[in-house]
């Protein structure tokens, strides 16, 4: 009997979703499903067919790694850890504190503008004199790390809010603190991108800033329904996906920059 024929009878047979959830131990009423499977040949046959398919999937082989695999991974990783320093949110928040921005604001904006103009998204490479090119590579790498870090931290902050445990009330003060730190940096990048004519980047950062500002300006203690409303709104904008894609592109640019001949490290 096919599934379609099965459902035309007066017996309430199990849906495909019931069978999948049951198979993965996530059915809401496993005892009821088990009882039905015991009594219904049709559904038991469908369950067995599903089981055969998933058993076949289990045979998907994974290539073995050698005995020294862990050591090899560490050997490749270690040099990169030295060139990818750990930044905490507070480090970057301190860097972008308003007082500091006012002091070095003009220079920072020019450097970021030069970076964003044709650097963030693929553009034809420009010929650069050797020494100026070396300093420019260093600046570019630093800024790619900064923008990439910002996008990743923003993504993590939003994901942490989305994944917060729901309850009668939800305390988002920690998420708000992070959002506050990120808004300042985001504003700088957004304004500079707009001035540099990078409309796509500015638009993404604008969308991101709306979400961060919404988080920042919400009450710290949210009711369950308010929390749900915020989550739905964030979801509907698709911001996590957009930021993830942008972050990947920045990382790609960073890797391309790293692939060029190394710049002198003195003075950094």
């Amino acid at each position, binding site marked *: 009997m096919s599934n379609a024929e099965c459902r035309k009878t007066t017996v309430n047979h199990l849906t*495909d*979703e019931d069978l*999948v*959830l049951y198979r*993965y131990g*996530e059915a809401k009423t496993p005892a009821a499903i088990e009882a039905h499977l015991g009594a219904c040949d049709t559904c038991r046959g469908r369950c067995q*067919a*599903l089981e*055969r*398919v*998933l*058993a*076949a*999937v289990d*045979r*998907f*082989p*994974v*290539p073995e*790694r050698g005995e020294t*695999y*862990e*050591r090899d*991974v*560490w050997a*490749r*990783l*270690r040099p*990169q*850890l*030295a060139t*990818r320093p*750990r*930044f*905490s*949110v507070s480090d970057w928040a301190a860097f972008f504190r308003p007082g500091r921005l006012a002091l070095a604001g003009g220079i920072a904006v020019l450097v970021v503008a030069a970076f964003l103009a044709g650097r963030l998204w693929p553009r034809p490479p420009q010929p650069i004199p050797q020494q100026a090119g070396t300093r420019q590579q260093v600046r570019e790498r630093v800024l790619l790390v900064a923008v990439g*870090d910002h996008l*990743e*931290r923003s993504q*993590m902050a*939003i*994901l942490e809010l*989305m*994944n917060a445990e729901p309850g009668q009330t939800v305390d988002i003060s920690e998420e708000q603190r992070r959002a506050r730190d990120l808004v300042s940096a985001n504003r700088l990048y957004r304004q500079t991108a707009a001035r540099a004519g990078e409309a796509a980047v500015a638009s993404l950062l604008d969308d991101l800033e709306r979400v961060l500002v919404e988080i920042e300006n919400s009450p710290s203690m949210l009711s369950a329904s308010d929390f749900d409303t915020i989550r739905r709104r964030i*979801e509907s904008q698709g911001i*996590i996906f957009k930021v*993830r*894609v942008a*972050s*990947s592109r920045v*990382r*790609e640019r960073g890797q391309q920059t790293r692939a060029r001949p190394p710049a002198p490290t003195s003075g950094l």
Partner: protein
Amino acid sequence: MDGSDQAAVARVRAGDEDAFRVLVERHTRRLFRLAYRMTGNEQDAEDVVQETFLRAYRQVGRFEARSSIGTWLYRIAANCAIDLMRQRPHRDVAPPAAQDDGEDDPPVSAAPDPERLAASAVLRHRVASALDRLSAMERTAFVLRHFEGQSIEEIGRALGARTSATKHTIFRAVQKMRRALEPLVQS
């Protein structure tokens, strides 16, 4: 969180780079298995493992012990793999029927049940093709549920998706796997 993982994280946060090695050695193989099942490609899986640890190192200061470090690394790896799968061009996979030409079957030898050996090879190839046909999200959700035993809720958290959406993603993936494999396994 495992005591030694906890101690390693504390030392990394204090600036001990070598302490990160403890985490790398403990979790590398598991991450490779996840990354391979998600990407279907050894080189891509290696890249995902590297990138996962690099991101984890950068973000270890923000890790809060709400979950284990293994779960945290898993989430990072899943996201790295999704990013990579979305970036690479869609691989054209010939329809299963066209692949049943025996070229990928292991050479028949004097070993017992050569027909079964050949059938196993065909089945493995069909499974790989079916997984390749899933979208990045479907494959991620399916791999995390089926191979790694993560709950639908945990998978949703890792992907930044609601539980209901994750459930439907997994159903779609299972349906696609069934359509591709049922004719073969029934025979």
